[in-house]
């Protein structure tokens, strides 16, 4: 527990994540919040707290905002992201549902059509596949099909991508699936700053937003830089290679950048934040400087957001999840997703280094 209280950029996010998904510490955020007492001290919070605070603030600001999902109210959230919100706002505004994703996602969409602002939580986006028709066809396309008459200001949020030891059916990264649908906005935040700001922006956005969190980041004090929403953020500046990543892969990329720095390689890490719309300008600006591009994501290879760029000295390196359903055994699972040593190795390869 003590290690998680330290102000560190990356290690806690992973240290707290190396545990089975079921054993969520119920008091994860208690005792961690600190208050600034001097200019040099930073006020930090965990990703989980940031999400919780974003929802609390928006629900206070606008009485049309409500939360709907499994275990969000009396259980305080399967991952404790909605902890305390039922106590503050009551059961009218924090609604527990039966385990019927297609049904309650449709209800959220209908409520949004009628002017409410639902935050529809999926326990993970793996379960959201049962509701994907409501997300894509009812929410994503209705504004267009109605000629601009019927907006759908709904937020679908929940953990996405790799967890730890939860097997193939609980580990898929859906960023590319939702990112391929025009009409949806798709966000994949990384730091606590991202989560607070982007969730507030998503709730206020009149478009349907798919908000992809990551369970392994919830407990961490992930510190990033604050910037405009819906844009990529250069979290670390460099001049030799551009590494583009989103969500948990930003953590690995930042660590890889530290490793590379030890060998004199200056990597620039871009936290993509928004999958759709994709901030191509930030990427191009960086690639013009470095002439080398690496893309890191947890999804399967065919769906990776690799693109051709005109300013490259070497082919684009794509680092993705392996093209297999996620295995359960720990050693195999480790080989199914990118990690820091792998990113470091591939970055060197892009720079024509073999060691």
């Amino acid at each position, binding site marked *: 527990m003590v290690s998680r209280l330290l102000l560190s950029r990356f290690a806690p996010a992973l240290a707290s994540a190396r545990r089975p998904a079921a054993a969520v510490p119920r008091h994860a955020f208690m005792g961690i919040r600190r208050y600034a007492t001097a200019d040099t001290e930073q006020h930090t919070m965990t990703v989980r707290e940031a999400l919780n605070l974003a929802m609390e603030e928006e629900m206070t600001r606008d009485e049309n905002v*409500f939360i709907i999902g499994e275990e969000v109210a009396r259980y305080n959230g399967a991952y404790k992201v909605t902890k305390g919100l039922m106590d503050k706002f009551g059961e*009218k505004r924090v609604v527990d*549902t*039966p385990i*019927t994703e*297609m*049904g*309650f*996602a*449709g*209800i*959220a*969409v*209908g*409520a*949004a*059509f*009628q*002017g*409410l602002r639902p935050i529809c939580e999926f326990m993970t986006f793996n379960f959201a596949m049962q509701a994907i*028709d*409501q997300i894509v*066809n*009812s929410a994503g396309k*209705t*504004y*267009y*099909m*109605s*000629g*601009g*008459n*019927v*907006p759908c200001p709904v937020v679908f949020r929940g953990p996405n991508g790799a967890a730890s030891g939860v097997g193939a059916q609980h580990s898929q990264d859906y960023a590319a699936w939702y990112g391929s649908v*025009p*009409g949806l*906005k798709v966000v994949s935040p990384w730091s606590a700053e991202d989560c607070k700001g982007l969730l507030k922006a998503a709730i206020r*956005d*009149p*478009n349907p937003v798919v908000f992809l969190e990551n369970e392994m980041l919830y407990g961490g004090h992930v510190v990033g830089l604050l910037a405009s929403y819906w844009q990529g953020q250069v979290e670390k500046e460099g001049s030799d290679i551009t590494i583009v990543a989103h969500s948990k892969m930003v953590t690995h990329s930042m660590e890889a950048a530290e490793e590379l720095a030890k060998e004199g390689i200056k990597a620039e890490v871009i936290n993509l934040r928004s999958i*759709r*719309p994709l901030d*191509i*300008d930030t990427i191009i600006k960086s690639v013009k400087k470095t002439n080398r591009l690496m893309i890191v994501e947890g999804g399967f290879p065919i769906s990776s957001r690799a693109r051709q760029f005109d300013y490259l000295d070497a082919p684009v390196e794509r680092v993705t999840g392996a093209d297999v359903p996620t295995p359960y055994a720990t050693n195999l699972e480790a080989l199914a997703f990118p990690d820091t040593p792998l990113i470091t190795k591939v970055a060197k390869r892009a720079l024509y280094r073999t060691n």
Partner: protein
Amino acid sequence: MRRMEMAADALYKAKAIRGFCHIGYWASVIAELLGRKGGMSQGKGGSMHIFTPSFFGGNGIVGAQVPVGAGAAFAQQYKGEKNCTFAMYGDGASDQGQVFEAYNMAKLWNLPTIFVSENNKYGMGTLAERCSSDTAYFTRGDKIPGLQVNGMDIIAAKQAVAYARKWAVDDQNGPLVLEFVTYRYGGHSMSDPGTTYRTREEVQRMRSTQDPIRGLQRYLEEWGVATEQELKPIDKEAKATVDKVVEEAKASPEPPVEDLWKDVYYKGTEPKFLRGREREEGHRFY
């Protein structure tokens, strides 16, 4: 199509509430069907996507509109509105899992949703008995009470709808299932002649003995409300209105090509660029 529309018109006259269904109105609906700019959805939706502030229909995904309808009722309850929502679907949709998910949550939370199953005996080309192990659709709501209504009788339809509204709005009894037993003369859609899965004789018989409009006419005459001579001009006027509207719609322009890129996102929140079919096509917003 006009006849079904008149029955639906009577249905909607009984209330001032929202409904999700597969039937259209006049005027800009015709333009929408023709894919014109003057259409209700500016030509972007087509026959399955007609929207007004109190009408959301239909939905291209069979059954999806049912939870969405329950969601509209959720919002009405949340905001304390004295209103309810009619979520309409056919016998073909009545076996969808999401329909039962919507039933469950509507009953659990006492949502003012009237689930309307329009049983016209055929789910597209398949007889209802071949799809549903239980075709008494008004009983499928389990704990939600249900009524079976003669959908070919306009007066019965109106009364049923009025009853449903009172049930949900005035008496706040929560959801209700209404099954309208009706008949479809034509095919499911324009590419279906409607005769490969039933006999012409069956269609003829229904048309001559069960037609709702003829039925209403008979009532009006029997009860001395109007004579055939008085009713004829109404029919004529309706036909003339429709003809005029169709001509207007036919003459109206298609949407401009820029509309391809319009309304993908809420006005004012467009991204910088939307790619076209190849790298030289696309639309830059700013």
